[in-house]
């Protein structure tokens, strides 16, 4: 696959429009999803991805290593996403993600070992999902970015460092803090849920 992509990038650099379209087909989903997780806004994500691919084509001559195309295009996407986020009121669009999550997933996201859940369990799971969404949105944008790139896109610390323009140590630190903040946020939420569970069980 890497050879295929490197070959497509080489062809794109000569101005081959078909090669560009092929690369679009390969990367659009993962770039869009990452943009969505980072920005929390569907509308912004479409703009971010559009801008990313436009820049990809217009700056194709600056690609030095065809084999590193993925981190190159992710770098463009992340920088563009940060610019979009900077321009709007702080995390306002994460309200959209919270609402969309509820609309798309009328029920619980999480598959459980049993096919059906008791009403109380449904309520608990739905609350936990909301908590996760809120927790992700509560992260500072660069922590959120590394969490998304590491866990969702499964990129290496080294690649993430290149993409975000930071050192590997900084990436690790942001990952650690991001996890800690998520845990702290969710623990706070879980204490309230726990109290309710205990009350219900008594």
């Amino acid at each position: 696959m890497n050879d295929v992509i490197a070959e497509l990038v080489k062809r794109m650099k000569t101005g081959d429009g078909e090669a560009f379209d092929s690369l679009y087909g390969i990367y659009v989903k993962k770039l869009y999803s990452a943009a969505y997780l980072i920005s929390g806004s569907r509308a912004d994500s479409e703009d971010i991805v559009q801008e990313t691919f436009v820049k990809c084509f217009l700056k194709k001559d600056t690609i030095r290593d065809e084999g590193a195309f993925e981190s190159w295009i992710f770098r463009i996407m992340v920088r563009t996403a940060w610019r979009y986020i900077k321009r709007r009121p702080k995390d306002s669009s994460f309200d959209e993600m919270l609402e969309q999550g509820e609309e798309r997933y009328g029920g619980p996201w999480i598959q459980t070992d049993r096919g059906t859940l008791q009403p109380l369990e449904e309520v608990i799971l739905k609350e936990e999902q909301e908590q996760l969404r809120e927790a992700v949105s509560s992260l500072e944008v660069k922590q959120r970015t590394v969490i998304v790139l590491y866990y969702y896109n499964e990129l290496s610390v080294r690649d993430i460092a290149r993409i975000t323009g930071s050192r590997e140590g900084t990436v690790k630190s942001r990952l650690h803090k991001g996890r800690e903040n998520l845990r702290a946020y969710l623990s706070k939420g879980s204490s309230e849920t726990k109290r309710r569970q205990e009350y219900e069980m008594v």
Partner: protein
Amino acid sequence: MKWYKGTQFGCGMPVSDVQEGAGRETDRTAQAQGIRKNVSKEKLLQKELRKLAESSRLTQKEEKELLSSIHSSIDERRKNMKLFEHRKMKIAAAAAAIAVLGVGTAFASGKIASLSSSVITDQVDYKNAQEVEASDTLYKKARAVDEFSNGAKFVRGFDVNVSALDENGAEIGTYPSINIDYSGEYFLDISDPLEGAEGQPYPAVLSETYENVEIEVSVMNYLFLPPDQEPDEEDMKLQEEGKLEISYGTDEAERKTSVSAFWKEDGLTYCLVTMKEGGDPEELLEMAKEIIAK
């Protein structure tokens, strides 16, 4: 009275947090509730992020529409941008490059989307006007002066190769050009452009016919950016309105106003450009006349 502690998926607190006395019973309770025990916290986070992302996937139709928007945006940008590659080019030399690439945006030929030139500014081909006029690069037809009446002096001249590119950045053709530096403030480009590569000049603020040669002088605001820098929305809007030219390839970002005199004579195209503070259209017009009168 029974009690239990729930397991939180998000933070993945292990069921081992449960009090030991009630451990086995609590495990069974956890299983009965269908909650995964053995998945690591990180795997859970990964799973949840994937589901979060899935809540807003693009449909196939949306992907196609997005690609179409991307193509349109690329076409639009290529029409408005002049891309040229000058590694480590100083702002002063940008005026030289503008002289080479001409004034205006759209090209007479629909096939040509942009021009690209390569200039090695420390390689001097011409030391004076006489050498320029004797050059085979422009078939010995070029005209130049050693000094203008306003004191601007011939410093150096060099050959430039200009490439005309299509919308995909592929080279359609090339044409020759000679670029002359006058006192580091005025740049004269003389070229024999490809058909359709002359470009539509910006609206003239001043024009005059002198010795059967029509001279047009125009003014344009420029924003020079390094290759990896992006213009902000306001500048993009000005560019779309035709009030700003954005050019890439300089080593730093800077705003300049260019004053350009443009004319054709004896099959060659002349473009005299200055970006000095207080550039005056009347001054450029007089300088153009001095070359025509030669």
